[in-house]
């Protein structure tokens, strides 16, 4: 067991955790460093704040530098102008303003687990904290700023990363400077699974890091991976009472009050738990108050909403949470409506991360429209995008397919087909198409099938080379009519193609060997995308400008009316001009032509009780 701990309090925490995992078969390794926490002093200064924390966290020769000076140094050294703080700018600022014993360097990997192994390796070797890039999505309520740096100060793994190339990542301890201006930084202690769920590769258009996870650390001499156990993303929700009990258990079991940042938990009172993202990726915030009126929370335990598993603990400036009733009342006042038909739920947006996990938004729905209300009571006429998204390649995405590794987007305007990384949007391949009006795409395990509306034909192309392998005439159900091609899917044996023709819009099963039309069922919607998992068909149904589009699901059956009876509406989506649908085995993806994005939604239902 390796222990590299700088402060007595840190030692206590690490020791507690090590005891917890001190099973005969599982020795633990930890690095826990004393790094003071600082919030960003301007809305775009999470980079300088992280730099300041790192420089004050050196094992020897630490420096105290103003964020303003770090900002100036970053600007002088950065090489990619689309960043407020780019990796090179931060690295050079650290080297220039507070030279370390050896050096700082930028690490970027396409694999988050490999990057975290590098972080753990370096922290073990040299006891320096590291700068980690959480994502390049907007955060902190300021959408123009789209990168999120944090100071990693602690890491707990099953094995010593300097001697093990692969070992489970148990916990990450870091200072998060992205808080409301004037509030202290969040000190977050999170499970490995929670860390990975929050860490995303660079998605900034034009960046050389696109598709890569980034940290500023020292070069490791050893490569490996830190894996984390999967966390439950769906399931039956535990009750708020159970969430309270789990929070108590984790405080005791992990001895969290031994740690300076969370000592206040010792005398704190639990407040009512808050359920966030109930449908998918749900969690409970269990706030704790040291306020004599028991109104203000100053720390919180976050537990998985389905399993109660520990996700993280954080402390922050005392805040009051807005109640559901207050959010509804505020919205009703804004809209000049009665509160009766208004509903509300807490969401932590995965797309536009304008708030922290600790301070989610109230998504308030009235008359089929969703509004946002922040913890501080700020009303948002448009809810930030809650669905995770990446930028769509091309000019006019009309179709989407998944090839087991990457998404493929069909660009109607440029007549190209482009594959990209679903986590970052990084372009992988691009093939020009010798087609006049490509409208839909699907992947059958070996080939990409593409439907051309102008020539009414189907072509199969090699995804590696773009070479055309087959061509078939597009069959149209004569008695039902045809206006346009709106989607294509592969069910394992057959192609399905969606046609729009008003009330005669259809989903058509086609034999890929000869193009024969085998079945044609009414879509009962305005199809804009089609996908299958082999058992079901999913249709993206457009509902005009007044009502949000939805995804429906029906079981593939021989008899049309029996198939129709299995139809369920499973997801309301946020995109205003949706098109295309692809399934990656867990999530459904669709294009939004209005914002040129590819968005991700979870198709399943959650059992609520």
């Amino acid at each position, binding site marked *: 067991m390796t222990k590299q701990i700088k402060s007595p309090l840190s030692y206590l925490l690490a020791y507690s955790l090590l005891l917890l995992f001190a099973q005969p078969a599982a020795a633990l390794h930890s690095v826990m460093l004393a790094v003071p926490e600082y919030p960003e002093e301007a809305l775009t200064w999470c980079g300088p704040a992280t730099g300041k924390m790192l420089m004050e966290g050196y094992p020897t020769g630490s420096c105290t530098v103003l964020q303003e000076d770090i900002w100036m140094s970053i600007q002088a050294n950065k090489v990619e102008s689309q960043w407020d703080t780019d990796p090179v700018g931060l690295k050079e600022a650290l080297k220039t303003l507070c030279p370390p014993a050896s050096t700082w360097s930028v690490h970027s990997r396409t694999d988050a687990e490999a990057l975290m192994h590098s972080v753990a390796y370096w922290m073990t070797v040299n006891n320096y904290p590291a700068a980690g890039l959480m994502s390049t999505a907007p955060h902190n309520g300021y959408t123009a700023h789209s990168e999120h740096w944090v100071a990693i100060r602690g890491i707990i793994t099953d094995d010593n990363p300097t001697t093990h190339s692969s070992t489970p990542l148990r916990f990450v301890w870091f200072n998060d400077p992205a808080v409301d201006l004037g509030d202290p930084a969040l000190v977050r202690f999170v499970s490995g699974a929670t860390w990975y769920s929050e860490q995303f590769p660079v998605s900034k258009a034009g960046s050389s890091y696109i598709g890569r996870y980034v940290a500023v650390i020292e070069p490791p001499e050893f490569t490996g991976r830190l894996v984390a156990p999967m966390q439950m993303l769906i399931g039956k929700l535990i009750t708020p009472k159970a969430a309270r009990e789990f929070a108590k258990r984790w405080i005791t079991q992990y001895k969290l009050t031994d740690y300076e940042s969370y000592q206040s938990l010792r005398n704190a009172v639990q407040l009512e738990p808050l359920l966030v993202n109930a449908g998918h990726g749900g969690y409970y915030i269990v706030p704790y108050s040291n306020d004599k009126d028991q109104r203000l929370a100053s720390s919180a335990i976050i537990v998985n909403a389905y399993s109660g598993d520990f996700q993280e603990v954080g402390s922050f400036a005392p805040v009051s949470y807005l109640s559901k009733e207050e959010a509804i009342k505020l919205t009703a006042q804004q809209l000049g409506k009665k509160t009766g038909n208004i509903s509300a739920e807490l969401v932590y947006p995965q797309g536009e991360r304008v708030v922290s996990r600790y301070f989610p938004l109230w998504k308030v729905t009235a008359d*089929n429209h969703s509004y946002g209300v922040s913890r501080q009571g700020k009303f948002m006429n448009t809810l930030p995008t809650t669905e995770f998204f990446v930028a769509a390649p091309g000019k006019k995405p009309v179709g989407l397919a998944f090839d087991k590794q990457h998404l493929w987007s069909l660009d109607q305007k440029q007549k190209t087909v482009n594959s990209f990384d679903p986590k970052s949007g990084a372009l992988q391949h691009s093939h020009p198409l010798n087609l006049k009006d490509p409208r839909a795409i699907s992947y059958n395990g070996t080939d990409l099938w593409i439907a051309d509306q102008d020539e009414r034909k189907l072509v199969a192309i090699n995804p590696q080379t773009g070479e055309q392998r087959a061509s078939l005439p597009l069959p149209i159900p*004569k*008695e*039902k*009519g045809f*206006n346009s091609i709106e989607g294509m899917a592969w069910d394992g044996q057959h192609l399905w193609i969606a046609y729009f*023709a*008003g*009330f*005669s*819009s259809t989903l058509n099963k086609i034999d890929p060997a000869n193009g024969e039309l085998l079945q044609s069922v*009414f*879509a*009962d*919607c*305005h199809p804009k995308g089609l996908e299958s998992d082999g058992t079901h068909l999913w249709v993206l*149904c*457009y*509902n*005009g*400008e*007044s*009502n949000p589009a*939805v995804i429906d699901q029906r079981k593939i059956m021989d*008899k*049309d*009316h*029996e198939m*129709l*009876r299995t*139809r369920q*509406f499973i997801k309301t989506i946020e995109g205003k001009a949706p098109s295309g649908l692809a399934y990656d085995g867990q999530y459904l993806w669709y294009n939004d032509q209005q914002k040129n994005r590819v968005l991700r939604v979870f198709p399943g239902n959650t059992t609520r009780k």
Partner: protein
Amino acid sequence: MYTLTKATTLILLCLTLSLLSGCSKYAVLISTNEVTQDNISYHSEWWYDLFLQYQALRDNGFDDEDIYVLYGNGNDFNTIHNDYNANLKYGHTITDMAVNKANIQSIFNTLSSKVGGRDHLYVWWMGHGGGSGPGSCNLSMSISNTGEHVTDTELASYINGISNYRKRTVDVMTCHSGGMLDNMDIAGTDTITLTSSTCPESSYSISTTCNGRPHAEFHYTIPNALREQLPCGGAVASDTSLNGYVSLSEVHNYNSTQMSTSTPQIADPDSLATSTELKRQQP
């Protein structure tokens, strides 16, 4: 005093006779699907359009007991929109029976003994349609929830099973619904047929309605014209003759000027549309 009593009795007798021999207005509303979700285009219309048509007929003097509604599994859709909820609006549900081929035939059989020579019969159909044959004019209408089909010939046969009537209105909203016209366009049958499209055309939903809810365009404009108002209450100038009544030719003219997605059709072999005003006691 004796004379006065006799006269009063005579007047009452005449009134009673007049009522007994007066006309009724019957309607059969057939919506061939089942809605499970609000605000879905090409889905929710099966209830929304049905409700608007029922409302229009009631506003035009049709009694509830003379309106036969076949829809879904036989139960009203429990919509979130209170103003499209029959229970809230009328204090009762409006669906009489599930929609299937046997029930459709049955309802026309029932009406054949009820509808009399002074009565008006209004037949309304909403659903999917396929067009085949010359000009795509052979219409086959789907009953989506059962997988059954009713051809234009079959529907005409069901309707013609009611032999006693004064006038008939047949109103069909399906793709290729123009295929119904040749089956009903027969002089001497006193029938006015309105369809949402020509034989080769599809029919479409719109969501640019006053309340943002999806409606088949044709089955949005017809009830609006008949009620002379939108579902949200705005006035509709369908009574262009300004006589206080909306004729079926005014309905068709209103459809023609308002609709943009398909071409509404009318067959009026006996030139009755101009004088057929549903709101009148005897249209």
